[in-house]
């Protein structure tokens, strides 16, 4: 299949929510996720002739572009810290406020921000973009088992924090 044979309307309808949610889980809710989603689709369209079906699924190709867009963004903004440098502690008052206002996703975002870049990226692929571990492994150049391990560790970490807040 050539790039010219791809049904772009169908691709757009199917992949837009996945890319958008990938960025929501990656950078949080709001205009930034939309901007990065738009950038991803624009780049995908401009470089559509480079897509080769024999090298992988279209979604893998699209998310490799999304990954580059995210990497570019973080490189320019330096606002994603590795785990060992993460000193971010949510303001209890803010957390309380978000809970009170049922802004659960905003709260989840604060928890995600405490993860390492890699952990958060994998969470975004898995729960934002709904990619399976094999596809994530291809995108991140990790082994499938490594992806599973990191995801499991990250989810446990988030789950503990989430439940702790629930119990308050």
């Amino acid at each position, binding site marked *: 299949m050539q790039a010219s044979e791809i049904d772009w309307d169908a691709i*757009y309808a199917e992949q837009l*929510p996945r890319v958008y949610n990938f960025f929501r889980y990656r950078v949080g809710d709001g205009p930034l996720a939309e901007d990065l989603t*738009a950038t991803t689709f*624009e780049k995908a369209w401009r470089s559509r002739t480079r897509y080769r079906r024999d090298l992988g699924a279209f979604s893998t190709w699209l998310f490799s572009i999304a990954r580059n867009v995210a990497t570019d963004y973080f490189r320019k903004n330096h606002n994603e810290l590795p785990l060992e440098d993460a000193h971010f502690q949510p303001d209890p008052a803010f957390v309380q406020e978000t809970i009170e206002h049922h802004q*659960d*996703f905003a709260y989840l975002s604060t928890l995600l921000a405490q993860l390492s870049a890699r952990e958060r990226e994998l969470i975004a692929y898995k*729960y934002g973009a709904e990619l399976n571990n094999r596809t994530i492994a291809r995108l991140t150049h990790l082994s499938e088992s490594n992806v599973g391990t990191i995801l499991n560790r990250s989810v446990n970490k988030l789950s503990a924090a989430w439940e702790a807040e629930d119990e308050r």
Partner: protein
Amino acid sequence: MNDEFLTQFREPPRPAFAHALYERISQEKVSLRAQLAGRLTLRNALVGFVALILVAACVYVLAAPKWVEVDNRLWVQERSSGYGTSMSDLPPFFFYASPLLSIEEAKSQACYEFKVPTWVPSDLYLKGASLFNESASDYSRAYIFWGQGESADVPWELAFQAFYTRMLIMDKYYPESFGMYVGRGSTKMTEVNSIPAVLIRGDWDYHKVFETLPSPDNGYEWDKQAALQLIWREGEVVYRIYAIGSPSSAEDLIRMAESAR
């Protein structure tokens, strides 16, 4: 793994955003298509032009006839057409002059020294020699002819030719060199008494020369059955042995050449 709390936050993008992005990409589709059409036309033209030049250069390099140096100042050039062949390429029998001289007469009257074969195939008989010893002309040549039986019909089966190249101006590529156009795939390098030589199988179809003097418009065509030739050079003299329709083999021609004294 309890991950339900992670999956509940997926939500579709805002319709306004999705619509605006779709519109933007759709417009880009049109403008990009238009741009690409324009660029590709120009680019294709350039690529085609460059490719044409490259192909032409490759064809020239690969297919253009090239002079091959057999020995110092002795050249052959294989080519598909005999157009432009010079007098030096013509079979020696074209220069048969009556009455014939003896070998001794030819040697004594020539303005240069040349060797003569002392061995020829046993079924060939000496017919005589011719000499073109015109110091005013561009070339000076000596010929010795052999034939089968008593036949006086020219051409005979075997001719020996000695060119004095000091007076030759037949090759613009190299002063005083001797060059011949021959058919493609007709040459085989060999030696005459350890001197580099070239065996040439065939000759241009010179019978046309009688029909369209001085040469056919489209040049001569190579006839592999026409002759067997051996050419080598010793000093200022280029020797050619030319055999037609005779039992002479390449080995015979080399043996004959190596017997020259």
